[in-house]
């Protein structure tokens, strides 16, 4: 579970940390990913595991489009840039929830767990006993891939450089909007991947994103903004803390442990565990 948080968080970290933009619609990206995976399964009988790359690709396009249509303008705001980002993406989140209600489950119907989960386990069961295990594996691979991408490729470096100094980057011929659109796409694709996997063992409903969004923020902040490794480590910590709290406290209080750990960490290290900003 922690690894999945990590994966959601890494996508957020990419957007949040590397580009220093707040994305309050992140949970809704996740929701879209879950729906995409669900529909691919219902209509085309493609197993979520196989469709995951497709979902990721679709979310990549979606993330890039969101950047070009909305975020680009939010970042350009001269005054209150932070608030504009928070509320334009928050407004987007509401729109996406509304659209999901309208098109996907007009009757607020959620997908029965056993129906989807059971079938997938029998397909995936040939290789691995638990879909969660697959999720963990995919998360590690995706994380490794992203880490390599950020630190070893030209484009990753361009992304970082663009955040540091858009003006200077423009001088060497890098188009800021292209780089950031790509970054948003990548962030969204990672969340889409997480969504596809989570569709296997979670209910899907228009508000599903909200319950994960806050944990994703906490995970990113715990690890420290601007650090991909931090987000991943944060994800593992959050997963562990959740497991431990579940043993000690009633289920209704399980998130308290995560929140308390976040507060504790930032009081000691105000920039998170691996934060640089």
């Amino acid at each position: 579970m922690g690894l999945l948080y990590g994966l959601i968080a890494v996508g957020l970290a990419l957007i949040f940390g590397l580009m220093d933009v707040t994305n309050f619609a992140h949970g809704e990206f996740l929701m879209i990913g879950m729906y995409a995976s669900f529909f691919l399964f219902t209509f085309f009988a493609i197993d979520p595991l196989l469709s995951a790359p497709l979902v990721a690709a679709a979310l990549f396009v979606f993330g890039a489009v969101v950047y070009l249509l909305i975020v680009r303008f939010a970042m350009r705001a001269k005054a209150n840039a932070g608030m504009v980002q928070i509320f334009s993406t928050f407004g987007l989140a509401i729109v996406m929830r509304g659209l999901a209600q309208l098109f996907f489950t007009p009757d607020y119907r959620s997908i029965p767990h056993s129906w989807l989960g059971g079938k997938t386990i029998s397909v995936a069961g040939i290789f691995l006993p638990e879909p969660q295990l697959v999720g963990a594996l995919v998360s590690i691979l995706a994380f490794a891939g992203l880490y390599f991408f950020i630190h070893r490729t030209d484009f990753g470096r361009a992304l970082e450089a663009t955040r540091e100094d858009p003006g200077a980057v423009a001088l060497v011929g890098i188009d800021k909007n292209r780089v950031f659109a790509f970054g948003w796409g990548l962030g969204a694709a990672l969340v889409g991947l997480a969504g596809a996997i989570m569709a296997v063992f979670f209910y899907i409903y228009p508000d599903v994103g909200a319950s994960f969004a806050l944990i994703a923020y906490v995970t990113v902040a715990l690890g420290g903004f601007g650090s991909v490794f931090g987000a991943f480590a944060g994800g593992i910590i959050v997963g562990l803390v959740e497991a431990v709290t579940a043993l000690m406290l009633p289920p209704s209080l399980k998130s308290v442990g995560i929140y308390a750990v976040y507060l504790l960490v930032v009081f000691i290290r105000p920039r998170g565990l691996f934060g640089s900003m």
Partner: protein
Amino acid sequence: MDKNFAARRRRDLIIAALLAALAALAPLFVKNVYIQNIMVLTLMYAALSQSWNILSGYCGQISLGHALYFGIGAYTTELLFTKFGVLPWFGMLAGGAIAAVIAMGLGYPFFRLRGHYFVIATIVIAEIGLLLFQNWEWAGAAMGITIPVRGDSWLKFQFMRSKLPYFYFALALCCLAWFVTWWLEDSKWGFWWRAVKDNPEAAESLGVVVFNSKMGAAAVSAFLVAIGGAFYAQFLAYIDPESVMGFQFSLLMALPAVLGGIGTLWGPVLGAVILIPMTELTRSYIGGSGRGVDLIVYGGLIVAISLALPQGLVSLFSRSKAKGATR
């Protein structure tokens, strides 16, 4: 120059008095209970947003956890009333005081944090509060508290037959929050807060104790929000954790100020007058039929306004003035 300034202050005060008088007369013409209800909520959110604006707008410490203080105000009032028979008026003040003390207590660790780390900490602490109340048996846990009906009276601040007393209280609260803001705007605190928001290091070099400034803003802001929470509890006559401490309250306090103009005197009122009726109307008119269309419209408008007017709707009124001053 000073005359201009004094004239502007006086003009603000006169406009506010006129608007308040107009609002006070409104129930004479609006008899529809549904609309009256919306008016009460609009005034309440205007007051809340105005209070939120003190800490987050003027002092620049963006809090998305003010639902905590709202809930504390509501719970203090109702627990004191149902368990100890304390009149809501005293409970209200007690709730405000407790909220202010908690805000300052949280300020010690929180005000060391900056930017996103601070915002997330405020969200997280409000969520912790919510979860604790949901599990606090003595305070009714997730079931909440139903306020016993004792008949209409100002003493018990309880009215079943007519919403009007609530309307006037909400109006008074809104006026209070506005007036406090107006008064603070031209006080040393107001100047310190804006300085702290713009540049804490420079503020410190000019003798402003940044930490104390933030504490002052947090206390005033939390106190007023808790009064609003106490009012809301009496208004609903029933509270449970989700309905007075949920994250949506934190957002609904912030949104009017942001849409109207964050850190401005008129922003929260303007934002609330547009946003709250819009929220309620889309919910009841479009929400029933289209399933989600209300959310699309609502969210779309938020996106549009925040992108088109980053400084809020207030900037529409002051744009010509600002341009004239620039050069």
